């Protein structure tokens, strides 16, 4: 029994009702077999008149109806449980954000993965309920009819659970799982098929064909070795059941011969004895079929288990496509050992920012800029740690971004640039230090409110399986005019209008696929579609664009950044050129690098 799954079924009234109906139907139908045996034995022995066949048909009719009822309510139970689990899992992804590398698996789990619960809910649970009730009822009836036969069944019946559960079930569950894993030498096969273009390029494609054969043969040999043992347990079960029948039938025949037993009773015993074993064997079979479902349930409940989410946000993909789980606030203790004295790279920047502050603020006012004033963003000794990583993603970073300032973040991949953006978005929280927005700690702000003031273009933006217009106007009711204007600014209007249904074209796997550069521009249009945003956070907005589009996007970004604060992760010179200040980040720290120095010096000269 799966405790969590049953708990869930019990907690949901609708599911509980369907499950109860399903189990009750299964049990009653099982008990009706007794009545059926009674009537049939009576008719065959001549104790009942032929007319007793009518109630027999009625019993069968009810059993059929109950069978249908059981199936229908089992289906309702299964869909009910899956819906509840899906809803919880989907909400969970949104609340805490999944661990990225397995995101593909998560999608599979919520979709097809949970379907593996069907055999458990519709097969195993009713079988278990029947197995708990029917054998006892059969035994009671047998004791009333013929104690000798009942005793034989009573003593052989436990052989099934004993052999089954102790010898078979545990080992078989393991071997079946192993067998499934082996039969998914799909793993190897899929790998080879996916890599076929690469193999072809180096003339290794044909060679792999023989490797596939050898791997398959080796796995088959290994699998058959385990199966030979695993199937032994089912041999024992089968033998226990059929030999018990022989054990009952032969003495009964001999006692009939001596006249110490009535034919009526003998036939009843013959009909009922197998029914004592059947439910237990059925339960065993259904259990094996549901092993995968139990594994899926375990996985789902493990994901739902209250972890220690440090942030209430989706963290999704951080640092250069490598996804990173939410950091734990507990990292503070570990970080305490790191000295943080004497190194304040933010010091000078802070001075610069303060100087720029007044001038920018004036400019914003005269330009009439965005409604809300662009805020000052201040990082004070911020350290961000991801669980399971020794090195901090950001290590004692201090930085001040003045209102309206345009900052380019540069530095090698994985250095912490994306983490810095995610920090400002509230996707990750500092393990140490704090982030101040106009002097207020970001941790105390309403994140949804704060994010309404931001426009964000992630490094690998996700396009949703919706229309282009909905993708651009994500999260708000943007007017068609605004969407078009945003697309035009992001250099996306041209290709969008060339799509079969223009802005109404549905994107995604089952819709139109856009090229990487086009996707980037749709995501950029999202940012343009938020005219009220005060802070732009752009993670390599021109990655994967060719030169002409890049230049256009850089120009558009320059216009968008006017009067707003912009923090842009950039690799390409054109984008970097747009910035007032270049901040180099490496190994989680701000590096007083060449360019930053040079630019600071130049700025000093100009002023």
């Amino acid at each position, binding site marked *: 029994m799966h405790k969590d799954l049953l708990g869930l079924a019990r907690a949901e009234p609708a599911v509980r009702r369907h499950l109860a109906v399903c189990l009750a139907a299964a049990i009653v139908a099982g008990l009706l077999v007794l009545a059926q045996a009674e009537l049939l034995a009576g008719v065959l022995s001549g104790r009942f008149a032929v007319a007793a066949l009518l109630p027999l048909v009625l019993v069968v009719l009810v059993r059929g109806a109950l069978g249908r009822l059981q199936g229908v309510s089992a289906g309702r139970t299964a869909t009910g449980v899956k819906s509840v689990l899906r809803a919880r899992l989907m909400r969970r992804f949104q609340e805490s954000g999944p661990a990225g590398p397995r995101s593909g698996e998560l999608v599979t789990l919520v979709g097809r993965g949970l379907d593996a619960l069907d055999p458990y809910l519709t097969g195993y649970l009713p079988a278990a309920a029947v197995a708990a009730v029917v054998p006892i009822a059969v035994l009671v009836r047998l004791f009333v009819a013929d104690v000798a036969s009942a005793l034989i069944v009573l003593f052989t019946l436990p052989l099934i659970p004993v052999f089954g559960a102790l010898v078979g079930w545990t080992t078989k569950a393991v071997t079946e799982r192993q067998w499934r894993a082996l039969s998914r030498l799909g793993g190897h096969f*899929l790998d080879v098929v996916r890599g076929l273009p690469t193999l072809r390029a180096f003339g290794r494609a044909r060679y792999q064909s023989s490797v596939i054969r050898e791997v398959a043969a080796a796995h088959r040999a290994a699998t058959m070795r385990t199966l030979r043992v695993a199937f032994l347990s089912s041999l024992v079960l089968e033998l226990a059941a059929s030999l018990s029948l022989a054990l009952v039938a032969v003495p009964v025949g001999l006692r009939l011969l001596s006249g110490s037993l009535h034919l009526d009773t003998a036939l009843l015993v013959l009909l009922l004895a197998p029914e004592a074993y059947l439910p237990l064997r059925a339960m065993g079979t259904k259990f094996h079929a549901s092993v995968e479902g139990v594994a899926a349930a375990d996985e789902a409940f493990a994901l739902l288990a209250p972890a220690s989410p440090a942030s209430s946000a989706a963290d999704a993909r951080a640092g250069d496509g490598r996804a990173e789980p939410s950091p734990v606030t507990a990292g503070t203790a570990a970080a305490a050992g790191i000295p943080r004295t004497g190194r304040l790279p933010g010091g000078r920047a802070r001075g610069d920012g303060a100087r720029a502050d007044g001038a920018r603020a004036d400019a914003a006012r005269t330009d009439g800029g965005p409604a809300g004033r662009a805020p000052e963003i201040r990082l004070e000794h911020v350290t961000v740690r991801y669980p399971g990583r020794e090195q901090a993603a950001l290590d004692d970073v201090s930085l001040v971004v003045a209102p309206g300032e345009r900052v380019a973040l540069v530095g090698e991949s994985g250095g912490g640039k994306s983490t810095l953006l995610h920090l400002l978005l509230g996707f990750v929280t500092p393990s140490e230090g704090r982030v101040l927005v106009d002097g207020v700690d970001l941790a105390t702000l309403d994140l*949804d409110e704060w994010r309404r003031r931001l426009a964000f273009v992630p490094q690998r933006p996700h396009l949703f399986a919706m229309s282009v217009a909905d993708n651009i106007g994500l999260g708000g009711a943007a007017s068609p005019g605004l969407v078009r204007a945003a697309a035009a600014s992001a250099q996306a209007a041209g290709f969008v209008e060339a799509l079969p249904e223009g802005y109404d074209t549905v994107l995604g*796997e089952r819709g139109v696929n856009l090229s990487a550069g086009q996707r980037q521009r749709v995501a950029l249009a999202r940012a343009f579609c938020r005219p009220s945003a005060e802070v732009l956070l752009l993670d390599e907005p021109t990655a994967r664009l060719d030169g002409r589009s890049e230049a256009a996007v850089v120009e558009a970004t320059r216009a968008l950044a006017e009067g707003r604060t912009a923090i842009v992760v950039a690799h390409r010179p054109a984008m970097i050129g747009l910035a007032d200040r270049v901040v180099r980040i490496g190994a989680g720290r701000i590096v007083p690098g060449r360019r930053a120095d040079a630019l600071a010096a130049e700025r000093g000269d100009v002023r």
Partner: protein
Amino acid sequence: MTATGASATGTSSTGTSSTGGVRWARLVGTLLGPGMARRLVVAALAGSAADLAGVALIASAAWLITRAAEQPSLAALSVAIVGVRAFATSKGVFRYAERLTGHDVALRAQAATRERLYESLIPAGPLQRRGADLLSRMVDDTEAVQDLLVRCLLPAVAALLTGVAAVVIGAFLLPVAALVLALGLLVAGVLLPAGTAAAARRWSARIAPARAELAARVADLVHGAADLAAYGAKEQALADGMAADARLAALERGQSRINATALGLGVLVQGATVAAVTLIAQATGLGQVATAVLALTALVSFEPVLPLAGAGERFAGVASALGRLAEIQASPVMVAEPERPAPPPEAPLLVEVRDLVVRHGDRDPALAGVDLTLTPGRRVAVVGPSGAGKSTLLSALMRTADIESGDIRINGVDIRSYATDDVRAAMTGLTQDPYVFQASFRDNLRLAGPEASDGELVEAVRRARLDAWADRTGWDTVLGEDGRTVSGGQLQRLALARALLYDPPVLLLDEPAEALDEETADALTADLLDATRGRTTLLVTHRLRGLEQVDEIVVLEEGRVTQRGTHAELVSAPGYYRDLWESETLAASSRASTG
């Protein structure tokens, strides 16, 4: 792309009619060579024997008991007693034999399916750019062969033989009753499974899109988590996901109603048949012993037959999976092998491309008349906007895309008269979308040079600027999906190391600096140009830095060569190249001026 075309034909097969059915039947037929057929017969016989033993056990026990009630001599019963014990023992043994032989043959059939499928994929077909999830569905589909044999075919054969045996026993006792039994078995064993199979086909045609819709919504929620959070669109996305789930659940409930009805009907047919057989026996005055044997044989003969309704449902899924595979195997090869291939070209190679036209599917030509010459020892760069046909040109040279008109000659011989493997042995390198296998770093590299010495591996890695990473990660660390993840930049450098290790006479490089950060890209490009000095190279790139060093630059736009010449010539003429060069250099100058 070709992927959309392939997926369209792939999904259309779900509901295909007889042609698809015939095709997959032929596919299964080819799998079952003489060795397999013998094993399958053994498994079917063992399974049938187990079920027959079950029927015989009950029939002989019924005979034993009713006959004993007539109180004959003990000797009259001895055969039945032996029979009961023998059938009880043999039932389990036969079942064990069936399960072993059945699984063995199923595993063999699956392995054969995969091997055949793989071999049909080796020549570049329209599937070469299939999406990752379509590929994994294809691999899942190969498991359908197992289900076809173990869950559909073998139980059906056993049920058939058992049913026939029961009807024959009945015919000896009372032909009319046997007729009724045959009718009942036909309803439960043919009509009901056919019904569930048809229902499953019909419902899965409705369920599949609902399932795909749910998967898309969930993928949006998971992969787009950051976007949704940043734009405050979480709640809407959640509501969409739950609505998709509700639609799917409603359909699944519909399907489960059909299956539950089939289940209930099965029980009903079994009971009604037994009652009818008993009634007829009583009415015709058949003796008590014969009546009991008849009734109980009828009752038990349904046991292997009733599960066929479930098998029918599964069969519908198996048939469509195998239909999809058959369709893939029947899909035309894009590049045909020559009947009598010319001997492989010998280095040094002169490659001449003349008026080359290449088309993907029915769309406008990806290359519309391209001329290009690769002279031994010279390096040529191809630049142009994305979608201009740069990668298609490489595909044509590597014979993974076919030539519509014009030609490519290697040392004066038409490329189409060489075996495609020989062409790729001569011209290859860093291709688009390089793949990391689930294998050690060393093996991932070595696939491009199975006989290479360790020194050569190290040298290739060093020249691809991957040495520091390799030392840090370890040469025997397993990479790939279940192993250590490889970033885009590292992947690109691994692919470059492979290309350098393979060392083909003509080196093709497709966007080697793609996905690298600016500085690494510059460094890599510099190294690359050093490493390729004096060797025949075709470099496809969108970055112009360093191209002063190549001998010729070809600008490709919309499938045509719009400019060609050296870097110096191209920057002095108006056009795509100069625009791009200016926008690349603009940054530096604008940085200087803003500063």
